[in-house]
């Protein structure tokens, strides 16, 4: 596996996040100037196996979670079921994962992802310290994406 620096990963993740949230949910994303604390409203997790192995964890505050789901569904939060909300966010992470890997490689490569899942606690990830944590800003609201890349090739 070629060496991926933290800066390369961050740049690829920013482009992928801007594209995914912009085209799916019409939300503008920029890199956060500083890391801001927020109460997590949703934790989403996906693994990838090709072209590199790794894991991606998306932590969203309730405000962005609601905005994403309402924008994608073009409906009010109260009209949506828990299943619809979960499915919407999982699809978003699935698309984000694919976009990130293509942005990382800078070309149209074979991408292999797991099915995304909802996490109920960060404790479900025992080696969280090994993740790079990146802070982004979605129209004034902070959120984070954490990334772990693994050494061995798939």
């Amino acid at each position: 596996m070629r060496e991926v620096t933290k800066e390369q990963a961050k740049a690829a993740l920013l482009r992928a996040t801007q594209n995914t949230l912009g085209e799916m949910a019409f939300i503008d994303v920029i890199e956060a100037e500083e890391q801001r604390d927020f109460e997590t409203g949703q934790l989403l997790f996906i693994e990838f196996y090709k072209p590199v192995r790794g894991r991606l964890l998306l932590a969203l505050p309730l405000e962005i979670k609601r905005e994403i789901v309402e924008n994608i569904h073009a409906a009010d939060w109260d009209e949506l079921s828990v299943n619809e909300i979960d499915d919407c966010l999982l699809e978003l992470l699935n698309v984000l994962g694919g976009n990130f890997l293509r942005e990382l490689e800078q070309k149209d490569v074979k991408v292999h992802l797991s099915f995304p899942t909802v996490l109920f606690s960060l404790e479900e990830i025992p080696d969280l310290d090994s993740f790079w944590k990146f802070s982004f800003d979605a129209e004034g609201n902070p959120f984070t994406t954490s990334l772990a890349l693994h050494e061995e090739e798939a």
Partner: protein
Amino acid sequence: MKLDKIMIVDDSATSRMIIKRCFQMAGYQDSTFIEAEDGLKALSNLNRNAVDLVVTDLNMPKMDGATFIKKLRLIDKTKQLPVLIVSSMGNERLETELEDKDVMGILRKPLTPEKVTDVVGE
């Protein structure tokens, strides 16, 4: 391209909704959309309903998109049926392999009305 009936095959209801919306915004607002959440259900549905186009994801439980397309090509009724892939997993090699199966194209997610128009027309 005239498309009275379009089948959308994707395990995510959100993705099916987005695909349907993109086709409607691309000019197919009068088309009828039939949905299936995996390849198995799609094959079963195609036994009962004739459609003009199948739009399918690749990464699905029970029967993935590539297997679904291979099976479609083994059935007389669906041998020539136009198929379009909408996925976050496509790549050039797979595209070449699937072109042999008469796939119209592979569109990357997130889908937009413009991407639909580029491949299917208005």
